[in-house]
């Protein structure tokens, strides 16, 4: 059977033109997706856990959904400071239930944002977000900047769908008319196709932004001959390219958010974009990784006022990244139970955090065996949104997209499993 206009549930591009061909419960062909999306969709039914598993001494045993859900609710109810972490590769509907449950438990809810674009949000809260939709970029932008990111490998269709290789309604010959500037500390594949590649010394982003802002302001005289390994000549050239563009679109990745300066780098980038808007139209968009990490920020914000790292222990929503963020809570050994949904801290968190995860009752809701599995006491497999579950996800530009399903493998969705855990929590906390 051929399923058209499917949405790829891998990265924040949320490409919605995917064609999937299935024979029974096997995916036999995927068209339009990049290698990352194709792998995820082709392996749709492989490596899934058959049912919940629970730790049994040093080994594991099978469990029923009822038993695993009962266990998960029990450890959350018993905890003084439960941490509910993940939420980036699941449906908006499940995220909303997670927030309600964290509130009722007086726990902390955080998404993978804290280890990807958390600093971008901190900067946006300070100085605002000059954003736009990817459709605007595709149709209007004649200058693209990729800074501290490598879309060729992390968002492989970003360039063909929205920037360099995409046709633009307001551009005659978009491929020729669009200029591409890549800024990075190493020469990546994306850098090799840039019109202008700017290689800066690690940690030099803030200084380069400041120099560019000075040049755009007409105060190039204060800029020294080289800034963080970049010549003044090249900085002047880039500033001129930006000022003379009709519409510039600035994209950045974790190369900026994780570099020294963290959110101050992004603040400086936003202020550069602000400066450029005196001359032309310029916008800025973070390249979001997980397909629905942006959704977690949206859902958390509607419900609590804060985009991630929300702490309900004071019975009101409290937010203080650096204190209420998952890595800090785990590294300080502060939480006494953890529910992990649709993310893999085992692969992405510092070792100290993982050591604490193994010492507390940790429950994982994830379709497949992951690096986090060995660290847990219980894992509950669910359906994968975009494969055998449908739901809402937010693209990296904040556009909500209905993610569709093309298989039925009989697994409950994240929303169903979290809903059932939440019911049990409510029975005790709100009898």
């Amino acid at each position, binding site marked *: 059977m051929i399923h058209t206009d499917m949405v790829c549930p891998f990265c924040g591009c949320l490409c919605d033109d995917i064609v999937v061909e299935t024979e029974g419960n096997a995916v036999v062909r995927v068209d339009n997706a990049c290698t*990352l999306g194709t792998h995820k969709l082709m*392996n749709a039914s492989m490596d899934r856990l058959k049912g919940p598993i629970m730790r049994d001494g040093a080994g594991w045993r099978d469990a029923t959904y009822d038993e695993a859900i009962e266990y998960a609710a029990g450890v959350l109810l018993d905890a003084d400071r439960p941490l509910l972490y993940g939420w980036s590769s699941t449906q908006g509907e499940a995220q909303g239930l997670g927030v309600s449950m964290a509130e009722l438990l007086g726990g902390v809810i955080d998404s993978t944002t804290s280890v990807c674009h958390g*600093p971008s949000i901190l900067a946006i809260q300070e100085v605002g977000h000059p954003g736009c939709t990817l459709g605007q970029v595709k149709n209007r932008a004649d200058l693209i900047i990729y800074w501290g990111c490598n879309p060729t*490998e992390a968002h492989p269709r970003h360039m063909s769908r929205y920037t360099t290789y995409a046709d633009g309604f307001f551009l005659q010959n978009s491929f020729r008319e669009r200029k591409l500037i890549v800024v990075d*500390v*190493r020469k990546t594949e994306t850098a090799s196709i840039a019109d202008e590649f700017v290689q800066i010394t690690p940690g030099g982003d803030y200084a380069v932004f400041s120099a560019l802002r000075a040049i755009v302001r007409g105060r190039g005289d204060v800029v020294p001959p080289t800034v963080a390994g970049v010549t003044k000549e090249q900085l002047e050239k880039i500033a001129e390219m930006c000022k003379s563009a009709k519409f510039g679109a600035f994209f950045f990745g974790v190369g900026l958010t994780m570099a020294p300066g963290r959110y101050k780098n992004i603040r400086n980038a936003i202020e550069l974009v602000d400066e450029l808007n005196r001359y032309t139209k310029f916008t800025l968009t973070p390249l979001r990784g997980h397909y629905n990490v942006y959704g977690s920020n949206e859902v958390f914000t509607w419900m609590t006022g804060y985009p991630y790292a929300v702490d309900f222990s004071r019975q009101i929503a409290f937010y203080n990244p650096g204190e209420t963020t998952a890595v800090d809570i785990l590294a300080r050994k502060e939480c006494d139970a953890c529910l992990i949904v649709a993310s893999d801290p085992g692969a992405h968190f510092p*070792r100290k955090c993982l050591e604490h995860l193994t010492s507390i009752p940790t429950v994982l809701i994830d379709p497949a065996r992951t*690096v986090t599995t060995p*660290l847990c006491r219980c894992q509950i497999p669910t359906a994968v949104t975009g494969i055998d579950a449908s739901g809402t996800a937010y693209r990296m530009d904040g556009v909500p997209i209905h993610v569709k399903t093309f298989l039925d493998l009989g697994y409950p969705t994240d929303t169903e499993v979290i809903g059932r855990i939440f019911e049990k929590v409510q029975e005790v906390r709100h009898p």
Partner: protein
Amino acid sequence: MKFLFNTGRTAAQGIGLDRKAGAEYARATSRCMMNPVDMMDLDVEAGDHLQVRGPAGEVVLSVVPAEGTPRGMVFVPLGPYANHILGGETHGTGMPDFKTMTVEIEPTLREVPTVADLMDEIGGAAYSPEETS
């Protein structure tokens, strides 16, 4: 020798994401990309093993020459190997030092561990599907 330890995405790491139990993912995330001149200084060749020591401990990776990586820096795909040596400090931002850790690197004859070995060391219990059912 001291190096700046940089982590990030690669396509191979991304492809492995949905099958993290597989050997492909372990191979993709245990690569240490290094400038060929630095490799000469360390006297290692492509595929040789390196012991990399960071704030939280050490891990063995295999070296891959990469012209695009500046001297004094190594690039390792994000994943369990890179994070095995990363400290929990976030400098009040929630974000650990994924791209700014200083590490000490030397050649070694030890084997690159499996992901299960790494998790065992942390205190985890490996799960294999045959075990239950």
